[in-house]
């Protein structure tokens, strides 16, 4: 009997998915540089707007919010890429047929989109270090570590939300509104650009179910913007882990791969 191995003895069964997706991400930016400008500028546009309507003391908190919001927006990009490749290019069939598993596909797309967001995150980090120092809330190594951990958690989480939704989108026309609606609403419900205490009580209760809330509280606590005890920090970290796990369980169940 002729098997795939005998017919195509040199077919690779292992591959370096992340470098490959890095090139995909880089090529997309290289060919359409202005496309990266819009999602990168959006957090800065919000920050600029906020300087007119909020007290200057909130600026470090708002910059942290912009960083977390940027990371959250990767979910929208993952949704867009994954849905376009599946619906318009019919590429997902090829990925399903390849040795690439669905989790590596998810991380691949998430990674390729992270490349596009890195310039914005770098600029915001520098801005945070400078503004934080001026406002007496320096970006210490500990705070930087917490910030990176929180950003990474949000990256995994929102990418998985993006890809899960993308696998359910049926037409090209749905991609932009679904992504925009989902990720902007999730971003606004969490206290990213304002302190949790500034929200009405009902909203505060709802926000406590969202992982980005704990990411924001952790970073704000680590920088000393919103005072938190060691126990509270541990609680926030635990709740971030729990909500992230819950999100991953739900999204991986929603995520359609080979059964399309």
């Amino acid at each position, binding site marked *: 009997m002729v098997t795939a191995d005998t017919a195509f003895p040199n077919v690779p069964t292992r591959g370096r998915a992340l470098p490959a997706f890095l090139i995909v991400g880089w090529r997309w930016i290289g060919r*359409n540089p*202005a*496309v*990266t*400008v*819009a*999602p990168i*500028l*959006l957090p800065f*546009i*919000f920050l*600029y*707007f*906020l300087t*007119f*309507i*909020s007290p200057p003391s*909130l600026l470090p908190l708002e910059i942290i919010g912009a960083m977390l919001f940027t990371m959250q927006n990767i979910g929208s990009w993952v949704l*867009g890429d994954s849905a*376009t490749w599946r619906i*318009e290019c019919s590429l997902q069939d090829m990925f399903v047929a390849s040795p690439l598993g669905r989790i590596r596909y998810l991380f691949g797309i998430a990674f390729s989109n992270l490349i596009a967001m890195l310039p914005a995150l770098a600029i915001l980090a520098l801005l945070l270090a400078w503004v934080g120092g001026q406002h007496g809330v320096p970006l210490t190594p500990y705070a930087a570590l917490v910030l990176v951990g929180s950003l990474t958690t949000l990256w995994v989480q929102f990418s998985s939300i993006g890809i899960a939704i993308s696998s359910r989108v049926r037409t*090209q*026309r*749905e991609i*932009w*509104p*679904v992504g*925009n*609606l989902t990720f*902007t*609403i999730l971003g*606004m419900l969490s206290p990213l*650009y*304002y302190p949790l205490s*500034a*929200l009405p009580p009902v909203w505060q209760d709802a926000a406590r179910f969202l992982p980005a809330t704990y990411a924001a509280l952790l970073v704000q606590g680590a920088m000393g913007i919103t005072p938190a005890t060691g126990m509270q920090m541990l609680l926030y970290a635990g709740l971030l882990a729990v909500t992230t796990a819950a999100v991953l369980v739900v999204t991986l169940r929603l995520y359609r791969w080979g059964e399309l």
Partner: protein
Amino acid sequence: MKIEPVPVLSPFRGFSAFLWTEVLVQAHENLAMATSMVVQGVLLVFVWILDPALIGVALVGAILFSMFAMGQRVLNEAAYVRIDHKANDLYLAGPLSPEAYFLGMSAGILVVYIAPVVILWVLAIEVVHFSVAVGLLLLALSACVWLFAASVGYVFSTFFRDNRAIWAYSSLFFNVFGVLPPVFYPFGKFPEALRPVVLLMPPSAAAAIVQQAIGATTLTSGQLLLASAGLAVETVAIFVFAIYWARRTVREN
């Protein structure tokens, strides 16, 4: 032999037919309709939480921004119809005139997307308590901003060759012109040196005029003239250009 008279083809022929076609198409776009209020919703939430005293200005700004953002819908729709569905060839091969195609599409989008704007109107009336004259002024300025944005949106749509790039470019354009300048916040908070620039941008020019009318800001007579004349001239100019461009691109296609 009987010679049939050549029918006189009017400009804008087929406008109402295409308007209602577009209304029927857009009426099925519930998600897009909800999305049309996202940016306004976010900014109103920011203002409500961080500086509630400005909510009246922000609501009036949200009305003007919503009319401006309809240009983004026109851009998306015109590009989708041309690139994705390739239906514009079919529409324009018939008796429908190019300018009626552009204006019918824009008006159809206006008819469907006006519902959330009406809600903003109700909220603005409740909060700002403006007079009938100010209401009429806001209506006229909204119409100008819509015509400007729809014309820009249609012209821009003809430059796209790739569906995937549309939303990024269009959201960038409409957010930069609608959110950065003083549309949702008082004109007086904007850096003084750059005020003439924002008075030449239709959304912020319209917002400055309304803010002056409701007493939220004070414009000099020169600034008022710059905003009014700039808005009128830019709107007429871009609308005329959009008609010319619609006719020209049909010939090219």
